[in-house]
């Protein structure tokens, strides 16, 4: 901070006829040699930095030239990627986002970053002809730039429902020119979904389920209405114990108790980050809920539960079995 004598001192340095050099010395050090050295060193750094960066960027990953008519897909969103693999388009996928973790082959593709913070040039560097993206893909400015650059963009339906899933399968199959594979997958999923529904038996009252996300002790987020978790719970014959708000919210201990969930539903990733189910129940309030006292904690892979991919009927069936709402 400029102390009581700070301003005058600087003033002296600048005002006198010989003030400027004196000030320069004052800034770098009392003795001359280190001052000159330090300044010269700085200049050398300044000159070297662009050169170093040039060396770093002069050899970017080069993608080969694109043969005409070849389908090159960049897939954004775990569910979308799963659909593409089920349609047999795996070999045409040249890049995916970081949420595309299933099947395992998807993890081996180049990663273009998180779905919501894409880089326009990064995606274009993979020379895609087709960009298939979940509704979450963004930021919007980047998506607009990709469109502008001539990449065909197919955006998936965000609807958290089996109908939405089937529509996405049809849309994606049409976009990659495999409508017959799409029709076959739709028929397969419809059959699967019918058998899941046939096995459901309605319970009154429906079991109350609380979807919990907690990656850090002390921070518990729960799913309200209009979330994928809410939709999934209802599809499986349960009732979301959290009502009255949309999206995710931090949970207070008292709100957890008054929600009185029969089941706690959470992701395997969250439990791993926390260090076990015991840690989850140690969060304020959760251990005292009916679900917590009875130890009814259901743990599933995040993408399996919420990805909205072709494993949706299986996820519903699995949850219904655990809720006791299916035979």
């Amino acid at each position, binding site marked *: 901070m400029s102390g009581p004598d700070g301003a005058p001192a600087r003033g002296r340095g600048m005002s006198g006829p010989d003030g400027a050099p004196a000030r320069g010395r004052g800034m770098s050090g009392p003795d001359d040699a280190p001052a000159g050295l330090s300044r010269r060193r700085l200049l050398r750094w*300044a000159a070297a930095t662009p050169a170093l960066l040039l060396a770093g960027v002069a050899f970017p990953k080069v993608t080969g030239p694109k043969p005409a008519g070849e389908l090159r897909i960049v897939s954004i969103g775990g569910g979308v990627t799963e659909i593409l693999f089920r349609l047999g388009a795996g070999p045409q996928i040249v890049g995916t986002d970081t949420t595309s973790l299933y099947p395992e082959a998807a993890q081996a593709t180049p990663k273009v970053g998180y779905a919501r913070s894409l880089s326009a040039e990064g995606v274009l560097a993979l020379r895609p002809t087709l960009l298939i993206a979940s509704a979450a893909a963004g930021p919007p400015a980047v998506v607009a730039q990709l469109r502008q650059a001539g990449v065909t963009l197919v955006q998936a339906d965000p609807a958290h429902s089996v109908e939405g899933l089937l529509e996405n399968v049809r849309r994606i199959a049409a976009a990659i020119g495999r409508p017959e594979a799409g029709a076959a997958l739709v028929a397969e999923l419809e059959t699967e979904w019918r058998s899941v529904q046939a096995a459901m038996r309605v319970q009154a009252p429906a079991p109350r389920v609380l979807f919990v996300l907690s990656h850090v002790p002390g921070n518990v987020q729960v799913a309200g209405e209009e979330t994928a978790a809410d939709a999934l719970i209802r599809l499986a014959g349960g009732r979301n114990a959290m009502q009255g708000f949309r999206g995710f919210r931090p949970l207070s201990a008292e709100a957890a108790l008054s929600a009185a969930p029969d089941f706690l539903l959470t992701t395997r990733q969250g439990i791993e980050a926390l260090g076990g189910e015991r840690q989850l129940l140690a969060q304020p309030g959760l251990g005292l809920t009916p679900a917590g006292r009875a130890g009814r904690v259901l743990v599933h892979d995040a993408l399996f539960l919420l990805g909205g991919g072709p494993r949706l009927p299986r996820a519903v069936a699995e949850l219904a079995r655990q809720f006791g709402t299916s035979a």
Partner: protein
Amino acid sequence: MSTAPCPASAAATHGARRLSRSTLLLLLGGLLAATVVLAVGHGAYRIPPSAVLAILLDALPGLDFAVDAQQATVLASIRLPRVVLAVLTGAGLAVAGALMQGLFRNPLADPALIGVSAGAALAAAGVIVLGGVLLPAGLVADGWLAAFVLPAAAFAGSLAATVLVYRIGMLHGTLSLPMTLLAGIAINALVGASIGLLLFIASDEQLRALTFWNLGSLASAHWVALAVVGPLVLGVVLAALALARPLNALSLGEARATHLGVDVVRTKRRAIVLTALATGALVALTGVIGFIGLVAPHLVRLLAGPDHRIVIPGSALLGALLVVLADVAARTLVTPAELPIGILTAALGAPFFLFLLLHHKHKGYR
């Protein structure tokens, strides 16, 4: 006030300093030009130098070159606006930092310190969360609306915060530095709480917009926004150059500056408005990109002394240079993904700044 007689700095002009000024500005200008060429030529999407040249020449009237349409789009609507925005951001933030440091007579001052950045941040967050009713189309999507509304709100926010801090800091007709700094701290805390509240009530999509914008990024650069922010930042830089002499006089202390014929109140007011203009408009477009306003003027002072006629233009050039370099790294280091630029400027800037502080700790540097 640019014509105000300022014998003190006029005396310093003649002699070695003038040479060192032109040397430094030439050096920085040359480096900046080279870096811009590097930045235009490099990116995740590979465009050969010959193609870059062809695309640029093709854009000139009367010249016709065969160009690849996608390469041309990448260069013209993704990469070029980004490099231009990087130059503007660096120059604007660095000049804002230099003005603040001159105004507060403290080389550690920064727009963030007295609430300028915070005010801009709160206003932009408010528009994103609460403006959704009035402006349903996504505010980060490109278009005139986003190009004007967000910067205007951010400018209003930064100006309001700055004026508030300035008013609180005014004691018996002089700007009391401790009062101003404390007011800045209070405003920063209040803004932090308000943004926290906005984050809490934000919907999932708004939250996404806020996070993206909070991280600091040049990815949303487009010509429409640049048409608004570009002239504004250039105007601020030019106006700041005119403030160099009064700020030099001010560094002698307010009383002596007044005796030298400098309108101290007007100088301070101008410095504050210019800082708010540059910071507000840039924060709205790029989010919070830290350390440029602090490091660039500091480095220039280290290289060429504290004369504002060197510090202000030098900071503009060096700030632009640093941000362009950081953005090249952000775009190319983890292709095909991208690093948030705020991480890079902080990772490069903070240790360097700490090093400088330690280096000069025992050498009478304040």
